[in-house]
């Protein structure tokens, strides 16, 4: 784990106070239905601190004390060495298990909404040759002062293709802390997209393992911060076998006095001949008080045919680019919107789920303009208009 092995990451780390008691609030299913109407979309699973509504194919919901361990074939470690995952393991009420059979396809939408603390687990197994497109939307029923703590474990079996998008749009006052672990096997591919906008405090630890030859991991993270939001995003990638590919692209756009730590760590293990490993972290500061610590790091245990690079760049908004846009008759507010939107688009481009992409685009642009977040955004095609002949 990076926190144990990397002193720099340990020093630059948000210390969280874990809830002493897991209080549950009133049912929020009515509010969830309203949000579905506002978004004109139905989610397959609605998970709250009190109950889970499930209509998803290949989805099963268990209470934490009845997890059938055999479902995940003993391959997962459940990340018990990590403090966040240990907290979630100890306090989860619900465990959602998604198993896509070999060569099947599925699209699954999950809304997570709570009125009390909500540690929960989602375990996903994509069978050989299967395809999964999974979207999770985190939102608040009302003004939220609780924590949501998802633990994800993914197993992407040989030649499967999984796309996972997590979008956090919870109101200020709330906290998101999460742990995600993914193991990708021979010839399989995982595309993971994380959109961090909501909550006052976000602390995430993600671990991705390209575990067998030819496996690919393509992870994108975008953080948009305002007011005094704090983000600690720690992502750990491993090329464990030959000819694996692991790429992490992290971006942050910060306004107000918000701060963000991007800690992308890549490891190329022994005998990972021909592995490709990339960590790229970029940030834009929209105000003088905003602060980004971009801390990419790597450990390369093998050199034969390995290509590994990391980079980081953070800067205020480019004055020359703004002048260029304004010189075409576009006012300063719209110019900034176009520039910031262009920066974000790189990180949203990997999301193929239309609802996830449009919701993220609208949500992030609105936030970068007004600083507000946590509301259900109006979805408009104008933000993602892209003509094609």
């Amino acid at each position: 784990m990076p926190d144990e092995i990397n002193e720099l990451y340990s020093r630059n780390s948000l210390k969280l106070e874990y809830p002493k008691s897991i209080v549950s609030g009133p049912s929020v299913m009515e509010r969830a239905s309203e949000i579905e109407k506002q978004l004109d979309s139905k989610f397959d699973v609605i998970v709250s601190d009190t109950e889970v509504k499930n209509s998803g194919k290949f989805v099963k919901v268990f209470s934490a004390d009845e997890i059938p361990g055999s479902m995940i074939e003993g391959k997962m470690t459940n990340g018990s060495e990590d403090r966040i995952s240990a907290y979630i393991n100890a306090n989860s009420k619900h465990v959602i298990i998604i198993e896509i059979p070999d060569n099947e396809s599925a699209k699954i939408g999950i809304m997570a909404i709570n009125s009390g603390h909500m540690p929960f687990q989602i375990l996903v197994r994509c069978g050989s040759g299967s395809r999964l497109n999974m979207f999770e939307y985190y939102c608040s029923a009302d003004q939220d002062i609780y924590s949501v703590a998802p633990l994800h474990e993914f197993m992407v079996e040989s030649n499967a293709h999984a796309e996972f998008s997590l979008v956090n749009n919870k109101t200020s006052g709330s906290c998101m802390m999460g742990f995600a672990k993914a193991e990708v096997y021979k010839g399989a591919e995982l595309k993971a997209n994380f959109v961090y906008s909501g909550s006052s405090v976000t602390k995430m630890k993600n671990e991705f393992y390209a575990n067998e030859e030819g496996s690919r991991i393509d992870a994108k993270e975008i953080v948009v911060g305002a007011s005094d939001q704090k983000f600690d995003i720690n992502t750990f990638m491993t090329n464990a076998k030959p000819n694996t590919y692991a790429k992490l692209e992290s971006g942050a756009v910060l306004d107000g006095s918000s701060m963000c730590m991007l800690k992308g760590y890549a490891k190329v293990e022994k005998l990972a001949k021909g592995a490709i490993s990339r960590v790229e972290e970029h940030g834009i500061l929209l105000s003088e008080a905003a602060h980004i610590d971009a801390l990419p790091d790597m450990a390369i245990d093998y050199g034969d045919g390995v290509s590994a690079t990391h980079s980081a760049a953070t800067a205020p908004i480019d004055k020359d680019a703004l002048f260029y846009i304004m010189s075409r008759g576009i006012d300063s507010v719209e110019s900034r919107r176009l520039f910031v939107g262009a920066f974000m688009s790189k990180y949203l481009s990997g999301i193929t789920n239309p609802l996830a992409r449009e919701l993220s685009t609208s949500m992030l642009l609105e936030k970068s303009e007004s600083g507000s977040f946590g509301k259900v955004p109006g979805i408009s095609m104008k933000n993602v208009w892209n003509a094609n002949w």
Partner: protein
Amino acid sequence: MKLEIKNVCIEIGGNKVVDGTDLNVSSGELHVLMGPNGCGKSSLAKGIMGHPDYKIKSGKVLVNGKEINDLPANERAKLGLFLQFQEPVEIEGLGILNFLNAARNSMKRDTKSVREFMNEVKERSSGLKLKEDLVGRSLNAGFSGGEKKKVEILQMQILKPGIAILDEPDSGLDVDAVKIVAENISRFMKETGAGVILITHYSRILEYLKPDQIHVMKNGRIIMEGGDELVKKIEKEGYENGV
């Protein structure tokens, strides 16, 4: 449309880069601005367009008699000014079509439908011999020098300014591309009646265009004006000896 530059001094970071320049341009006129490197041509162009770092410390810039010294760049563009950048910025993620559509919507200079707009972009791109997929890409990201210059000319054609300042549209272009760019500038002027200030170091582009006046700048000032003969003189003798 008339652009008047009256005794303008421009500073950047406290250094004077344009030192009392006068220049008048009206619709339909082609003025060529030449001069050695660092003489203030591009600084004048950016100052006229309103770059926040290029401060007009004295003198006036007028558009149709209205002083624009304190207007932001977008307001200057709406009055009909256009700057073709010598080194256009690259903005990854901002599609050219999205950008152009946002610009024309802000300018409100035409009432074309999206389809008509798209058709015009397609036609103009073809006239500039741009690759068909280029306008579907991010603004200037990964473009060659020539492609960037052509996309600048494309923007001018779509946005139809009253007076365009073209800052070295020919630098870095091969001989065929210079001809294509020149023909498109000429066509644009004929179609719209716009005036142009063309900044260049080379006479080749002027083989395809008919300037009304040549201005030579040195040390931040226009020190000589004339016709075609001035270009020939500079070409033969250089700025040191010829001017």
